[in-house]
């Protein structure tokens, strides 16, 4: 399994068809080599100017880092090493910064059983722990909307319900997170391609390439994206050291982040954390391309719907009714 993973990783990061939209393959090596000294000297001046601006943890290597999709295998390795050292210093732990590529023949989809969800928010906090969201200020990828029975108008829903016990009589719950749209409005608008859809359907962000313009947040119809307005704070004893470059590695200030269906888990054959922690089994996850997967069977045999179908975002996140 791990061998296959490795070769897939290489394929994912060097395969010509992934870089083709940016630049013709033939012109890449020369265009990348030739202007390098110029770029360095030019940027050196810029760095000098920015030096006084006290931008957090801005090392030279970090500053010059390329977009993840354009990195060579060697650059990826160097970046991972640098990040591991940085995290070790900050949190005192040895981190895994995975770069596993997509698994061939996988297209991930999600289904959530509205009838079973009890609104306990274990998924919300399980996600925060797994994905190293900032504890102060707080960021939650999952928001659980509570609806009154007979109503499905988000404007009348409430995410701040706080009863003694859930589920409450007369209400039902609908957790919402990134819907991993097939026709994602957020990736389209990014001016620097810092966010994109991976071949296995996961919508990811390169936190080191994001310029923090927040256009993707304006474009998302599901509140699926969150911004680190301040330096994210995670206590060292709570930080999860098993990470993926495009997923739950610790983020920096002033960049956008989002749910990745736990890319660090699903690419090594595990379920997303929210699926695992759900006490009532309301959350289902699997490969949409496999007709026998649980998710495919649910979509085929249950009554399913997707949020805001009228926007043609084509989410890979389905809601369904178990009976």
């Amino acid at each position, binding site marked *: 399994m791990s061998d296959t993973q490795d070769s897939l990783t290489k394929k994912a990061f060097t395969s010509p068809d992934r870089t083709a939209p940016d630049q013709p393959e033939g012109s890449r090596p020369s265009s990348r080599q030739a202007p390098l000294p110029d770029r360095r000297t*030019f940027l050196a001046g*810029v760095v000098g100017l920015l030096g006084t601006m006290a931008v957090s943890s801005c090392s030279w290597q970090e500053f010059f880092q390329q977009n993840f999709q354009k990195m060579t295998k060697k650059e990826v390795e160097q970046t991972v090493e640098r990040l591991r050292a940085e995290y070790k210093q900050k949190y005192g732990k040895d981190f895994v910064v995975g770069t596993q590529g997509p698994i061939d023949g996988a297209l991930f989809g999600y289904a959530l059983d509205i009838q079973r969800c009890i609104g306990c928010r274990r998924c919300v906090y399980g996600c925060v722990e797994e994905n190293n969201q900032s504890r102060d200020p707080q960021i939650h990828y999952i928001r659980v909307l509570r609806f009154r029975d007979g109503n499905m108008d988000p404007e009348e*829903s409430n995410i701040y319900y706080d009863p003694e016990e859930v589920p409450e009589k007369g209400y039902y719950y609908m957790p919402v997170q990134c819907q991993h749209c097939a026709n994602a409005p957020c990736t389209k608008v990014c001016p620097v391609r810092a966010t994109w859809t991976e071949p296995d359907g996961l919508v990811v962000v390169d936190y080191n390439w994001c310029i*923090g313009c*927040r256009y993707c947040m304006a474009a998302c119809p599901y509140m699926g994206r969150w911004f680190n307005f301040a330096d994210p704070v995670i206590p060292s004893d709570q930080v999860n050291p098993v990470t993926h470059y495009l997923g739950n590695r610790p983020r920096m200030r002033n960049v956008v982040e989002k749910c990745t269906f736990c890319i660090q888990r699903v690419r090594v054959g595990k379920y997303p954390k929210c699926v695992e922690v759900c006490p009532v089994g309301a959350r289902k996850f699997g490969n949409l391309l496999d007709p026998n997967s649980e998710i495919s069977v649910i979509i085929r045999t249950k009554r399913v719907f997707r949020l805001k179908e009228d926007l043609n975002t084509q989410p890979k996140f389905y809601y369904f009714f178990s009976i």
Partner: protein
Amino acid sequence: MARFGFISEVGRRLVTGPTAYYAWVGILLILAAIGVTAYVKQLQQGLIVTGMTSYVSWGFYIGNFTFLVGVAAAAVLLIIPAYLYDFGPIKDIVLVGEALAVSALSMCMMFVTADLGRPDRIWHLLPGLGILNLPRSMLGWDIVVLNGYMFLNLFIPGYILWKAYNEKPADMRFILPFILLSIPWAVSIHTVTAFIYNGLAARPFWNASILAPRFLASAFCSGPALVILLYQVVRKYSRFHVKDEALFKIAEMISIAMAINLFLLCAEFFKELYSDTHHLSPLRYLYVGIHGKGALVSWIWFATAFNVVAFVIFIIPATRKNFATLNFGCVLIIVGIWIEKGMGLIIPGFIPAPLGEVWEYVPTTIEILVALGIWSIGLLILTLILKIILPIEMGEFTKRTVASTQFRPTGAKA
């Protein structure tokens, strides 16, 4: 040698002037310094110092940016009659309009940079070094058209003034294509800026095709209103001559633009009110408030009243041709459009949030100080440009005058 003479003369002219000039520049420099200090604080602590949240993720900066793109675009209103219809009185003063466009554009760029979370990564936008996501991202296109417009507004007046400096006639066959190009280009900058918001299906308040036409109509009100005020300042403080006729002509154009703007507003109101869908919520937030929240309500009613009163002033020839009422109308329009196309456009786009929550936004002191600083730097740029180009255009600052002052350093020649 000649070039050195030019540069030293520019330097000399920038640091000499009447007391009022020093006072004005001094005030702007102080405000700019305050703005820079506030911005440094924002860089040190992150955008947490602003009032923005993940719910309302754009605010005061982007509001000002949007307003100023309109001001920059409005330079075209002066170019069309000046060059195409050869309307002499406006032609004389078109360079001042282009100077205004340059300063408005530089403010636009400063405002988006201030809004950027990671200004240290701005090189990611440069094609070749980074990745500019064309043709997909409207923000990418906006960067292209704004920089192109900046180039045109520097190049055209630069060429004409360089010829004037050398006391040679400008070659119209060379420069006219650029002038003609700048007309659709001016339309494009405001259209593309409108498309940034317009293309987002997640935000019904912006996702209406009327947005780009309304942007243009309101820009053609606020930009020229600023120009009218600016020309009166220029002709008061310099020997530069601006005919009343030119100002009244511009005011006439404003009345037409405002009529269209108000008509489009009514069209928008009708559609939302009559169809009465959920898409009405942002408009309701803006004009009456929802769930007891309505930080913008009084602002937008003032803006609407200002625009209507200004429209009446500009449509009646007697008040349009009276400088007291004309200037009053200009101020009303500038403030009215600044509210309407700034906060009044950006904030309701985010309220209610896509899943129905109502989180309000109010700019913090830091944001207001940074914005004040950017406005000051923009006005400083405008002042300094005018300080140089007006004497060149009037023939007071040419190669010959520079040479003569160099040969007679005591300034014996009057």
